[in-house]
């Protein structure tokens, strides 16, 4: 383990229960570092919860090892946290009670943990009467009460409304910063993963599809599956036509639809071309040197914060995002003729394996 890793999986192989239909989870190398949040992203059934439980030591691996350097332990918050009969304070105390800590000390630390997540006033309330958001906060307070070195969260914001999620993310971010805890958050939702993540691991069908810094994974997904999961909405097949002296290649996506991209792929290679929606720029005055030429707005929808527009460019559909409420976000409408531009460094190119 490197010096800042507190929990690491090495050549991990987990087969959870013979009844689970032969599902196997393989993770060659995954480390959680102090003060860092790792988001584990994947579709339902990818093995995210299994990985989290294996990291917590609740499932024994069939092969490989979990290396732990966490003297204060590893806390796991389940997707549906267990609330025990009794009041909120007792629920927060349980991990300390389980470790044989004296009552007075337990109460003191539970109170501090509840205060950290803004529910100290609920200490005497029956835990079964809490709202979804309050129950989430109690579960997090209960995890922090033992001051663990590692915090593992399974879909922690799943059943919260937008306001509750935002408030909880703020409190959680504060707690993570103050305690320098190592965190892993499992989620199927990209936006939830991005709320706190420093790094992203993508699981697909029990395999670690990609692991990297947040922006690296967002900009350079390692496969079509990862691209879809991390929101690289423009994902098109193409072929490298030629390379120029500057090291840029010309990729043809459709007749007359070509892009200048930075890639090491040789001429003639079949490739995937990926562009994040926020990197497709509407070039208002046609002055951008990276222009792709004329296009037209096919449809436009907005949720009030973001405008999503689909642009028809040589019969290809490109998705772009604009901020709603000002500038183009306000004025752009379906049917408009526009110019679009994409910087070569914003285009991700991946060789397309022959079928």
């Amino acid at each position, binding site marked *: 383990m490197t010096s800042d890793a507190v929990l690491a999986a090495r050549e991990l192989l987990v087969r959870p229960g013979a009844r689970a239909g032969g599902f196997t989870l393989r993770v060659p190398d995954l480390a959680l570092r102090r003060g860092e949040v790792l988001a584990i992203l994947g579709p339902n059934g990818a093995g995210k919860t299994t990985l989290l*439980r294996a990291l*917590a030591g*609740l499932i024994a691996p069939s092969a490989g090892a979990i290396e732990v350097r966490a003297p204060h*332990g590893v*806390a*796991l918050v*389940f997707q*549906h*946290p*267990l609330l*025990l*009969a*009794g*009041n909120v304070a007792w629920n927060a105390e*349980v*991990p300390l*009670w*389980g*470790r044989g800590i004296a009552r007075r000390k337990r109460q003191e630390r539970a109170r501090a943990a509840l205060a950290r997540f803004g529910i100290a006033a609920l200490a005497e309330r*029956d835990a079964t009467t809490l709202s979804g958001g309050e129950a989430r906060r109690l579960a997090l307070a*209960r995890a922090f009460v*033992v001051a663990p070195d590692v915090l593992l969260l399974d879909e922690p914001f799943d059943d919260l409304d937008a306001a509750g999620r935002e408030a909880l993310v703020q409190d959680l971010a504060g707690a993570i910063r103050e305690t320098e805890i190592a965190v892993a958050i499992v989620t199927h939702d990209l936006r939830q993963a991005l709320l706190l993540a420093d790094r992203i691991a993508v699981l697909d069908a029990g395999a670690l599809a990609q692991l990297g810094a947040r922006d690296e994974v967002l900009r350079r997904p390692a496969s079509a599956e990862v691209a879809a999961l991390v929101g690289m909405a423009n994902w098109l097949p193409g072929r490298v036509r030629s390379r120029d002296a500057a090291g840029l290649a010309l990729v043809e996506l459709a007749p007359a639809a070509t892009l200048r991209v930075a890639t090491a792929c040789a001429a003639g290679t079949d490739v995937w071309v990926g562009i994040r929606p926020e990197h497709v720029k509407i070039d208002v005055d046609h002055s951008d040197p990276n222009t792709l030429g004329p296009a037209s707005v096919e449809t436009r929808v907005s949720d009030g914060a973001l405008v999503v527009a689909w642009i028809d460019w040589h019969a290809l559909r490109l998705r772009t995002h604009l901020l709603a409420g000002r500038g183009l976000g306000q004025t752009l409408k379906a049917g408009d003729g526009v110019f679009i531009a994409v910087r070569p460094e914003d285009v991700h190119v991946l060789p397309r394996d022959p079928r």
Partner: protein
Amino acid sequence: MSGVVGEPVLAIALRTLAVSGAALALAVAIGVPLGLALGHRRFPGRGLLVATVNAGMGLPPVVVGLLVALALWRSGPLGTLGWMYTPQAMVIAQVLIALPLVVGITLAAVGALPADFHLQVRALGVRGPRAAWLLVRETRRGLLAAVIAALGGILSEVGAVTMVGGNLEGETRVLTSGILMYTQMGRFETALALAAVLLGLTFVLAAALTAVQQASRR
């Protein structure tokens, strides 16, 4: 009056309490751990075992009486104990009647817990005796329901205790077997007195257990 005074009602009531109390304690001591274990362990044959327990909840007491009598009869496998027509025989019969009730209702209480209860308790860092205590604490209302059901089952039972106890005055006569006998003798006043005591006893004990159960709500 024919001069037959009979045993004082109080003595019969106290014996009933002693026999049924002992049977209840044994049934709970054996049945609750069995039900808790059966409730969260998965092993081959578990389904059959659970079905047997559920069928046992409807076991006719006379059949239990017959089986215990066969076992304790002088020539039976446990004949050398010499327990036939003793309070011990009655306790054995009542334990066998109450056990399926205790196991079955405990099982149902454990089944009502979330499927990942044990995993979550383990994740909270609670192990060993404390984890067992937490399990009892979380199922306590169901466990008290099991005790109440078992108490009702054995206090009201007459067939088996008469068969293996013999309703011997001063030795094995309990409230139910006394009621049966005095009714057959036409001594309805005594039968009614015993019945009143039995009803009162059942009500007071059930009410006390219910109070405990309801108090444990929070």
